[in-house]
């Protein structure tokens, strides 16, 4: 009997290597489990082979498998080529279990913006799994996949990992190819691993990362080391007071993070308060200008001509306008219009130009901190998973979910979430941020802390 709730990808590989289970048995164990979370938009049959199964966020293009980006405008879209990350997974024998639910075009923090209905949280079905990668998070947490790929623009891997109680990495910008991935905000989008533990996360990162001739923003990546560290001797941890004291952080979240920091000290790390005054205060405003501006340009490609939905009209312009009105949901429409407004004549300098300068301020503040610290730590999300429907009618309240994940994204920095405890019976996530290309250091620290914390990733209601 394969316990899909607990089995790690590394454990699965061991079972396969020792021939204790066949590839078909392993695939069937996941594929046969009922999806009570609306985690998958599309489930695949066993493609054969003996590799580890994996779930893929439906933002990532998969040859011959529908890729909707959670949008009606791509409802019938079937890619004719694989994204580079998919080609990399296949080269390692990984087998696709299916495509996971996402906020439309990865725009959201709860998966409620999916055109195919919200995903829900395996810890409590009445609550959100986070977003935009709530489907991948729910699949991994709920035993429907050993691991998954997500994508992160402003927190879409880290925040769902926090809310569902597992590990997620947003890699350094440029380390993972975006070729074949549905574009949202190109200077921010990064694909990354979603996993049950830190070693699986590192292993999956080693599979997908590296320079790609098809994505000129990718760079050479240091060799990935699977972490074995059990202590944190000599590690300098900075704790930005703003990221641990912004309004809206729940007391139970603060308590779990404080306990994790005490554990880190007991493992040999030094913990010191520091400050990111403007990154936290201005990060969300900066992000919600830069990302929509880029999105408004990227989403102009959905015009009913080459692929995707078409709604007929009497002339070309009418066809495009009707197609886009029918095909896009509210959140992409809001972001397209904000972005268009921010880039339009007369407003460009005041909005987009200013936001790009704020981005420099955020980058510099982080660079200064990394002269004194190896890693900076905060909660990943100010709250535990909130009830489905609680914030859906208030876009600004929804945007504030991302206040702690956004600043490092703007600076292109890697960020890792590990679960650090429970509050009100729901997982609390710890965010570790490092300098660019410091993934190995993040894995080491996260692995040591993970061992010390001993968090049980199986949702209590499923144990």
């Amino acid at each position, binding site marked *: 009997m394969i316990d899909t709730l607990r089995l790690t990808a590394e454990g699965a590989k061991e079972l396969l290597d020792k021939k204790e289970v066949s590839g078909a048995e392993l695939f069937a164990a996941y594929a046969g489990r009922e999806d009570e979370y609306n985690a998958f938009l599309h489930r695949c049959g066993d493609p054969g082979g003996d590799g580890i199964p994996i779930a893929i966020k439906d933002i990532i293009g998969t040859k011959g498998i529908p890729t909707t980006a959670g949008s009606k405008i791509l409802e019938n879209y079937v890619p004719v080529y694989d994204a580079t990350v998919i080609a990399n997974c296949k080269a390692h024998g990984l087998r696709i279990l299916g495509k996971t639910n996402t906020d439309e075009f990865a725009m959201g923090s709860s998966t409620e913006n999916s055109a195919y209905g919200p995903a829900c949280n395996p810890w409590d079905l009445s609550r959100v799994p986070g977003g935009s990668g709530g489907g991948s998070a729910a699949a991994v947490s709920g035993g429907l996949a050993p691991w998954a790929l997500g994508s992160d623009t402003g927190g879409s891997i880290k925040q769902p990992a926090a809310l569902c109680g597992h590990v997620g990495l947003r890699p350094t910008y440029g380390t993972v190819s975006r070729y074949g991935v549905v574009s949202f905000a190109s200077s921010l989008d990064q694909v990354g691993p979603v996993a049950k533990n830190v070693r699986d996360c590192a292993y999956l990162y080693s599979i997908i990362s590296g320079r790609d001739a098809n994505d000129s923003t990718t760079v050479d990546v240091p060799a990935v080391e699977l972490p074995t560290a059990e202590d944190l001797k000599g590690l300098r941890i900075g704790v930005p007071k703003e990221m641990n004291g912004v309004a809206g952080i729940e007391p139970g979240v603060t308590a779990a993070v404080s306990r994790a920091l005490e554990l880190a000290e007991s493992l040999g790390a030094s913990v010191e308060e520091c400050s990111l005054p403007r990154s936290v205060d201005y990060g969300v*405003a900066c992000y919600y200008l830069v990302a929509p501006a880029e999105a408004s340009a990227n989403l102009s490609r959905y015009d009913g001509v080459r692929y995707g*939905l078409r709604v007929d009209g009497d*002339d070309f312009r009418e*066809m495009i306008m009707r197609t886009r009105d029918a095909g896009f949901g509210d959140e992409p429409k*809001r972001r397209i219009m904000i972005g268009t407004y921010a880039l339009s004549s007369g407003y460009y300098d005041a909005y987009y130009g200013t936001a790009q300068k704020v*981005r420099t301020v955020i980058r510099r503040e982080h660079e200064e901190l990394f002269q004194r610290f190896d890693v900076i730590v905060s909660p990943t999300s100010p709250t535990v998973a909130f009830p489905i429907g609680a914030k859906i009618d208030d876009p600004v309240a929804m945007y504030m979910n991302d206040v702690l994940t956004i600043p490092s994204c703007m600076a292109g920095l890697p960020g890792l979430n590990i679960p650090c405890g429970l509050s009100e019976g729901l997982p609390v996530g710890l965010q570790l941020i490092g300098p660019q290309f410091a993934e190995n250091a993040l894995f080491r620290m996260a692995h040591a802390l993970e061992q010390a914390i001993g968090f049980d990733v199986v949702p209590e209601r499923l144990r």
Partner: protein
Amino acid sequence: MARITKEEVLHVARLARLELSEAEVAKFQEQLSDILEAISKVSELDLSDVPPTAHPLEIENAWAEDVPRPCLSEDEVFANAPDRSGDYFRTPPA
């Protein structure tokens, strides 16, 4: 910060090629005003000596060898097209 007008919503929607219903215009007028108010916070900082950041990595000129590579076949290119006429995507008249 002034709220945006119905005319501004319609203007932006037209620029973005979105045909909005009456109900959508009213809803988005409210929501976009709230969002713009929140993001206008970026103008509080003194940024006179700060250069813009367009990209998080300092890389430039990613060169590639100029050699032919296999590309998609015509049928693959048109596989998802809503309408096709031979080698062309067919659309309503401009």
